[in-house]
């Protein structure tokens, strides 16, 4: 039997990122690498700095110090003219916005932050495709309906505005809108956060399937360790702006090493 190929290219190289609003408010000296095909969970309590870190990683907020480097790789559908390495905050605003629109995706906790509530579901899904240059109305509509079915929404409601949808439906629509362009890297901020438990379960199952079938690489922020167990391959535990422990998800949850992680894991109620 041959040795398995376990090396995976680094997609995101995060180097010494600091973004502080005050002492221990924000995130400090964060270093990690995300490998292609990995789902990395960032866990911690509110105020741990995990959401600030996500905003910096996702290109929404420049860090005080440090670099976020995105590495494109040969073998993937990267055009020759594309640079192999992009330093997120060294490139221009226009290039960064193009990257966020074309190759990355962001799923907000509150679907209202990620959707345009006044325009139809179909237009919401089609918007990123149009930004990529697709103009054919019939095709956009067909893709929109296909994606609505994929996220278990009634495709017959393609002309309805998201404000007429329930919270769980809005979240699924936001996911469809984000994934329709097949982003290589997706950021998710508490994607199941504001939802009822029954709706959460359905969404979790859907996300697992999409991550696997699309081969997504994901950075997921959540305070919910059960969600982290189900979705993340690897975890990073944050406290007061710093990373206290990282490791395989099962190891972090079954054999936590750091005092704070032990406290966090042992404080979870299991029904």
């Amino acid at each position: 039997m041959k040795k398995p190929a376990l090396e995976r290219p680094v997609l995101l190289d995060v180097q010494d990122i600091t973004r502080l609003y005050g002492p221990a408010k924000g995130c400090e000296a964060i270093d990690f690498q995300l490998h292609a095909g990995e789902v990395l969970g960032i866990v911690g309590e509110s105020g741990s700095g995990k959401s600030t870190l996500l905003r910096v990683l996702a290109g929404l907020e420049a860090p005080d110090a440090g670099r976020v480097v995105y590495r494109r790789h040969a073998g993937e559908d990267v055009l020759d003219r594309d640079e192999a390495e992009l330093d997120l905050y060294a490139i221009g605003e226009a290039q960064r916005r193009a990257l966020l629109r074309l190759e990355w995706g962001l799923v907000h906790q509150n679907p209202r932050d990620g959707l345009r509530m006044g325009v139809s579901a179909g237009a919401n899904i089609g918007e990123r495709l149009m930004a990529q240059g697709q103009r054919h109305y019939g095709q956009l509509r067909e893709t929109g309906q296909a994606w609505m079915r994929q996220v278990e929404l009634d495709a017959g409601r393609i002309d309805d505005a998201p404000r007429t949808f329930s919270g769980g439906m809005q979240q699924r629509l936001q996911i469809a809108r984000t994934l329709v362009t097949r982003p290589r890297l997706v950021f998710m901020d508490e994607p199941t956060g504001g939802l009822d438990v029954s709706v959460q379960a359905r969404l979790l199952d859907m996300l697992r399937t999409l991550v696997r079938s699309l081969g997504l690489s994901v950075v997921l922020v959540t305070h919910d360790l059960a969600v982290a167990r189900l979705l993340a391959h690897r975890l990073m535990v944050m406290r007061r702006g710093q990373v206290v422990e990282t490791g395989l998800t099962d190891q972090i949850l079954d054999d936590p090493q750091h005092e704070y992680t032990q406290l966090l894991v042992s404080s979870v109620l299991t029904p």
Partner: protein
Amino acid sequence: MHSMTNARPRLTVSGLHKQFLLHGQGGLEIDVMRDLSLTLHAGECLVLAGRSGIGKSTLLKMLHGDYCIDQGRIRLHFDDGTLDLETLPAYAWHGLRRDVIGYVSQFLRVVPRVAAVDVVMEPLLARGADEQDARQRAETLLARLNLPERLWQLPPGTFSGGEQQRVNIARGFIGEHPLLLLDEPTASLDATNRDVVIALIGEAKARGAAMLGIFHDEDVRDRVADRLLPLDDSLGARASFTRDVQETLS
């Protein structure tokens, strides 16, 4: 049947230690394993024996990456080289678990809303297998394990302990991993289904899988074990592991 005298083991464990340090309990240190060593060959099933709490499951969890390897070495041997698990970066475990190390845990981790058959086929889908083929293989295994067909499309959350365990076994065996860790897979099964599991283990041996297992049922143990590895209160399972099972049991 693969020869057990096959010179190259598939797995070697040497000088393994495990200690839990509980910060919340005033820094309580619990030693659960000291200086454990073993070798495991392709096509062989090594059964861990010893009272409960002696560290049998702990060893399996260390081999699966669930527990940190504090001290000692765990090495997997391949035709073209060796892999050291104690220094393996976390991201490399994903592929290792998908393709090399399979694990049948004692209890099924239930995912809400996911049907039994989907739970079983997931390890194949993770490798990019065709969905129809994967489903067919999952159904074949569930049928072999006598799980009533009406349950296949239901999430296993409401199943009985024995039914959940059979789903878990099917999920563990479907991937035909070259190294399989079995944590009491027959604990809540009736005699008929125990026989099915024993047959599955026999087939895994025949295709060259190396297995490390925990079985409390002595009858099952006698039927699947090629060797026993006794763990005792000295916390060190020492040099005597290569004893033949007959010898150990007599």
